């Protein structure tokens, strides 16, 4: 009975466990509807601070439309997911993080956000955030991060470069910083390479400063507003810092490695108003060059004398601070009696916080076609001086060129013996100027119609496979042949050795030993001829082997006859005397003829 109760209890336990498992799985598999929540970390901030908006999606995932948030600048910060099992109920949550920076002060609203998952649409609740003009005191140091922006000139002329500089002052360590610069609407923008980093003390506190500068040029006269730049980053959460600074330097100081708790922060700079002034009306005679800034103009001629047909280089240099690269080709009077070919202009400019500085060279190849005096220029340029706020005429004087008659029949520059230095026909080397722009002409001969001799892929493949194939084929043949040759050489050497032993035995009077050795020498000779190895043979086997090896019938008969004679002496008990000596001689001849000279 007790056994029955025990078994029943065991069965009950099993059923209970199974039920829990089944219900758990059922709970896990149950399809729940998507629900969303919008959470902010603070509802009251200053205008310079930002808040973290967290969209939590439970039991599903959808696309969040944040474009309806108008009062804040929105920056996506990341996504995370988590799974929770509570009371056999599994819940999956997706978190989307956004950093929101207010665009104004007041009571700002994050409107209800639409989250779309397939055909299903759900909405979050709206959230109100109070934004104060004054910086709010905040645990952890509201003044830890400051972002300052400034312009070098608040009332520039249209076309005048100004420098926009933003400085990030960080009193704490900053990680994963991302800077979103203003759109600079109404300006052309030039990024200055690199950023400055230094330290400064403000109100008794030390800050590390990162400074980035852009060169801005107003496009048209208007009152412009440079929007705030926004920086999002992570800073160490002083209040939740878990452990001391890592001894392994900056790599492990990264929050990813150190496990340090950080908080997302966002700061923004002030908006900066800029008034771009229109250039005053230009009433000059010459056309305005479009240059705004501070410039100079210079003209130089490579030489003062030149012969007809030779070229000399005229260089006009526009140099200064401002939009130098925009400088057009200076206009000047082109006299008769010369041909003038402009070369490509050459620029050399640098950009720094004061603007664009440098020069632009315009070179012209001047080729006189008749002798006499040629006057080039004067050269003039109208620019706008942004400091003085007026147009200026840049002028250089005219340059004069004396054109000599051409050298008749004196093409060579090598001076004749005795020629004085003044008569030297060596001429100074000059820069070769481009006098035209065109492509090189077509090919005219009929070889053009010859096809390029490409090897088709199948033939190329055969060509690649052929040499290794040949190599390995020959290698196989040679190895097989080497094997046969080895047997021949081995058995021939053995035959000669046995013959020598037989001679020694005959001299010592041991007939039995001599005939036995002689027999083995003959057998070895037969094997050598056949290219095989072995120890003994019958007469029939001997004939068959020699026939297969292509040995003539006469030679075969001779070998078999010698074998028979040795056997007769060995087993017949005949007196060997003179017969053995003759037999040795005869065997020696047969071995020589059969195994050849090489085998000797």
């Amino acid at each position: 009975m007790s056994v029955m109760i025990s078994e029943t209890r065991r069965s009950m336990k099993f059923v209970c466990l199974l039920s829990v498992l089944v219900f758990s799985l059922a709970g896990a598999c149950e399809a729940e509807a998507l629900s969303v929540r919008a959470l902010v970390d603070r509802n009251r901030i200053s205008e310079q601070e930002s808040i973290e908006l967290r969209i939590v999606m439970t039991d599903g995932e959808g696309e969040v439309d944040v474009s309806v948030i108008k009062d804040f600048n929105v920056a996506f910060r990341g996504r995370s997911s988590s799974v929770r099992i509570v009371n056999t109920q599994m819940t999956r949550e997706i978190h989307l993080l956004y950093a929101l920076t207010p665009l104004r002060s007041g009571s700002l609203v994050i409107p209800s956000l639409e989250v779309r998952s397939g055909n299903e649409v759900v909405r979050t609740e709206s959230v109100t955030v109070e934004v104060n003009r004054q910086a709010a005191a905040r645990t952890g140091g509201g003044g830890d991060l400051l972002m300052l922006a400034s312009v070098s000139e608040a009332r520039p002329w249209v076309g005048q470069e100004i420098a926009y500089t933003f400085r990030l002052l960080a009193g704490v360590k900053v990680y994963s910083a991302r800077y979103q610069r203003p759109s600079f609407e109404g300006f052309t923008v030039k990024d200055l390479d690199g950023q400055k980093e230094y330290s400064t003390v403000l109100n008794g506190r030390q800050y590390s400063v990162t400074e980035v500068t852009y060169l801005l040029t107003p496009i048209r006269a208007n009152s412009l507003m440079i929007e705030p730049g926004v920086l999002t980053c992570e800073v160490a959460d002083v209040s939740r810092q878990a452990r001391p600074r890592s001894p392994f330097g900056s790599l492990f100081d990264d929050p990813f490695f150190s496990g340090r708790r950080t908080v997302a922060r966002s700061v923004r700079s002030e908006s900066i108003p800029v008034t771009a002034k229109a250039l005053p009306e230009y009433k000059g005679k010459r056309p305005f060059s479009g240059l705004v800034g501070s410039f100079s103009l210079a003209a130089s001629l490579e030489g003062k004398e030149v012969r007809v047909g030779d070229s000399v280089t005229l260089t006009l240099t526009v140099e200064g601070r401002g939009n130098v690269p925009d400088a057009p080709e200076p206009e000047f009077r082109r006299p008769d009696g010369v041909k003038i070919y402009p070369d490509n202009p050459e620029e050399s400019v640098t950009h720094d916080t004061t603007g664009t500085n440098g020069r632009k060279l315009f070179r012209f190849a001047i080729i006189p076609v008749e002798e006499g005096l040629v006057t080039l220029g004067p050269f003039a340029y109208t620019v706008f001086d942004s400091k003085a706020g007026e147009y200026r005429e840049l002028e250089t004087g005219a340059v004069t060129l004396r054109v000599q008659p051409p050298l008749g029949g004196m093409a060579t520059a090598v001076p004749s013996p005795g020629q004085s230095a003044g008569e030297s026909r060596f001429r100074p080397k000059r820069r070769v100027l481009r006098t035209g722009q065109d492509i090189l002409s077509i090919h005219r001969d009929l070889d053009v119609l010859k096809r390029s001799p490409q090897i088709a892929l199948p033939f190329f493949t055969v060509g690649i496979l052929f040499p290794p194939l040949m190599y390995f084929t020959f290698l196989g043949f040679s190895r097989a042949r080497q094997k046969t040759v080895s047997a021949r050489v081995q058995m021939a050497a053995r035959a000669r050795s046995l013959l020598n032993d037989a001679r020694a035995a005959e001299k010592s009077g041991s007939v039995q030993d001599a005939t036995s050795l002689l027999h083995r020498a003959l057998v070895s000779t037969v094997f050598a001829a056949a290219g095989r190895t072995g120890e003994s043979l019958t007469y029939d086997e001997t004939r068959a082997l020699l026939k297969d090896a292509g040995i003539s019938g006469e030679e075969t008969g001779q070998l078999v006859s010698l074998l028979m004679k040795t056997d007769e002496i060995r087993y017949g008990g005949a007196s060997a005397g003179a017969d053995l000596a003759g037999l040795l001689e005869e065997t020696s001849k047969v071995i020589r003829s059969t195994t050849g000279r090489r085998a000797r």
Partner: protein
Amino acid sequence: MNLRSGFPLASFAWFTVALAGLLFAWGPGHASGSDTIKRPDTDTFLAGVRAYEAGDYAGAVEAFSDLVARGYGSGPLYFNLGNSHLKEGHLGHAILWYERSLKLMPGNADLLYNLDYARALTRDEVDEPEVPLGRIIFFWKYRMSRPSVQVVSLLFWLAFWALLGVKRIHRGSLLRAGAVLTGFLGVLFVSTAFYNYYEERYSRDAVIVGEEVGVRAGTDEGATELFRLHAGTFVEARRSEAGHTLVSFTKDRVGWVPEHDVELIRGP
């Protein structure tokens, strides 16, 4: 009967070279067909040259294109076609034919000059300039024409196997060094040659030939225009469907253009 142990590898090298010579003589001929130039074709060519010299660039384009359609293909012919297109104002087609010519005569100075000139006329700025590291490491691929690579690779390959054969009879460090060197160069050039065959057949490099082409998000006319490309710009043509080709200018500039506005450099 002779037991002389002669080894045939000595003659192997000569035999290999002789047969390879035959293959060379036979292969290229079979690859490109007969080199006989027919009279009407020479007339067409000369008509094209005359048209070019007379400033009738459309006529030159027509004549040279006609020759290409008849199966003629050489670097200089493609060069002439590129010149004619450029003079006619077809920048995209000019760069296309210069690029095709470049595959057959990569070191030609005239071609490089004209190609640079044509490239300077293109309007689209490439965001990420091409990193020339590959061109530096595999310089021979970009300095040698495809036929040259094929011939050189076969020669090195043959020399390597011939030296291996000779090395079996005559042992020497010089032979060994020669075999190692020719083997290395052989493998390098054979790989390059096979890569060239692959590229010739499967490369998706293409050139925009339309003057200004709107790149759209889809193949229908109402699809959003994502950006615009101009003649002569290089793209990767990924695939074609419904009369349009999906092109990639950079990683983040991808979209569909009408099929007739883009052409593969390797040809259709």
